[in-house]
């Protein structure tokens, strides 16, 4: 008899993998550490997703409902995997609150952790209340509260979005590009301009990576329709004159130092490896790649291989990833897992 397949993590990749497995008529056990499914878009309260513009609670919420309704999928929330042993085709797994089960294979969809901007103290996060992260702004919008300065609740007249906070920064050991923050920031800038037409939004960048088709829909549209200003600069420090925030740095196109006052500064925070990756790697016996994400094999044979046969990986567990690609990878990893064991049987 076919054994179930284990999916670890209930974000976009895990939901896609569980849905694919259930749809193929395979039993799937989905284990989620938090008390509900949905992953970062739901747990961190994202507002509208890029590039679709759909509300996270509708789009990802729909994926959650679909998985919960799938009779082939058994969901364990507030639960983790404490032991994982055996061979491909017959792994023995201890699930907290779910007892010991035997599974054929496992797909790790354990995601990422938002960069904590406290690790970039010179940019004022944690020092000045009006320095916020993109996640906080998402929450301001998704909660219906609107864009307000946390210090006194006023509507900002001028907002700076700093890109690459916790990305492409060798100084703090984050050498990677988090891939989607440029697009998210361009989208956020447009949303701010839409809500507060009198508020000017400046994006400070070293390079803009609104890759692929996002160039039209986000990069150019934000400038041409929404008058968002992009300033190529290196930011040295975010400080305060007692009334407003002061962004200090160098405008590298104009080649002059800048000290510009702002009401609100938004850190476009990057994607760190999941803080639990060391433990996850140990439990599942997989290797991490050099940055601390879960190492992934070449894609030419099948997608989503880890260093351990029978254990697959998908989504932002492998490195910074978009929601759409996480969903694609979750589906592909499910296919890899099913195909391997179908041919082996």
């Amino acid at each position, binding site marked *: 008899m076919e054994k179930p397949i284990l999916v670890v993590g209930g974000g976009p990749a895990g939901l896609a993998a569980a849905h694919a497995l259930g749809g193929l008529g395979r039993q799937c056990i989905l284990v989620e550490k938090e008390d509900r499914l949905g992953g970062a878009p739901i747990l961190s309260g994202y507002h509208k997703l890029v590039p679709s513009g759909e509300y996270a609670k509708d789009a990802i919420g729909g994926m959650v409902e679909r998985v919960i309704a799938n009779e082939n999928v058994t969901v364990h929330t507030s639960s983790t995997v404490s032991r994982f042993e055996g061979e491909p085709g017959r792994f023995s797994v201890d699930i907290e609150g779910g007892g010991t089960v035997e599974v054929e294979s496992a797909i790790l969809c354990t995601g990422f952790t938002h960069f904590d901007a406290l690790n970039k103290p010179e940019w004022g996060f944690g020092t000045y209340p009006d320095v916020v992260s993109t996640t906080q702004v998402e929450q301001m919008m998704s909660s219906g509260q609107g864009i307000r300065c946390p210090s006194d609740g006023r509507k900002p007249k001028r907002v700076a979005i700093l890109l690459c906070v916790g990305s492409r920064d060798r100084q703090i050991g984050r050498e990677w590009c988090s891939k989607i923050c440029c697009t998210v920031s361009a989208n956020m800038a447009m949303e701010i301009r839409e809500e507060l037409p009198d508020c000017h939004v400046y994006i400070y960048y070293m390079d803009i990576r609104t890759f692929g088709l996002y160039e039209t829909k986000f990069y150019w549209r934000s400038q041409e329709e929404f008058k968002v200003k992009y300033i190529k600069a290196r930011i040295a420090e975010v400080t305060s004159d007692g009334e407003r925030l002061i962004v200090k740095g160098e405008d590298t196109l*104009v*080649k002059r130092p800048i000290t*510009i*006052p702002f009401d609100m500064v938004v850190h476009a925070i990057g994607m760190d490896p999941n803080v639990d990756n060391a433990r996850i790697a140990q439990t599942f016996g997989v290797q991490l790649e050099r940055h601390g994400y879960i190492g992934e094999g070449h894609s030419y044979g099948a997608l989503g291989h880890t260093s351990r046969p029978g254990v697959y990986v998908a989504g932002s567990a492998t490195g910074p990833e978009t929601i759409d690609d996480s969903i694609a990878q979750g589906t592909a990893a499910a296919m890899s897992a099913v195909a391997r064991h179908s041919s082996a049987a």
Partner: protein
Amino acid sequence: MPIHEKSLIRPENILSHEKLEVDGVDVSGHWSTFIQDRVVTDYNENMEDEIAALPGGEHIHRCWQCGSCTNACTVNALNPDFNPRYWIYLIRQGMESELLRDKDIIWQCVSCHKCTHVCPRDVVPEGVMKATAHWLELKGHRPKSHSMIFDEVFSEQVFETGKIEDGRVIRGFFKRTGQALTQDWMVEMVKKVVSKLPVSLMTRMGMSALIRPRTRHWGPAREAIREYVDEQKQRERAALGLNELVAQAAAEARSAGAKQESSHV
């Protein structure tokens, strides 16, 4: 200097003093050189709208910074500091202080319109240059250019009389620009004209210089033109926020005057 070779320190920002003492320390001479602050401390968020409100600047928002204008530019070939693309960038970002560094060369545009023809976005950079030069004058960053003064003398006369009398235009222009009326080339030209011109024509020219002819029934046209020109000027001043500035200055002057009077009492 080509923009990628731009030095961080502009020559005009380097200061050295023959004799200077600061807090009792002698800092005279070349070994103690000071460099003026070059920090950008704010953006002028109205700048693009202001330029767009002036004739020629209407399409500045279309620019996507391809650089075709600068590449095609006649003046840029002679002076690499003349960079329309860069100025459009500065205006759109509101970097007024950086634009003002080039205030003394922006007027040099020769209106050859090569940029107009190569621009893929129909920005009409030539128009933007014109609007920017105009903006610099209206804001008081530049004195009125000679060509502006000529335009004024010329158009005032047309508005007034409906005719152009060359001699009067030239006299007015020389007077307002502080130039001598009898310049060598002028004397030479008049001599030659006089020696070649038929007597009847000479007489007519002489007469028009004296009696200042007008177009018949010009009055209503003059009023209409004046009204239109005033309207346009008023609109430009409003767009640049100059009326508020003038009102503010007047109010300040009044209150200062009142204070002075009261102190006399």
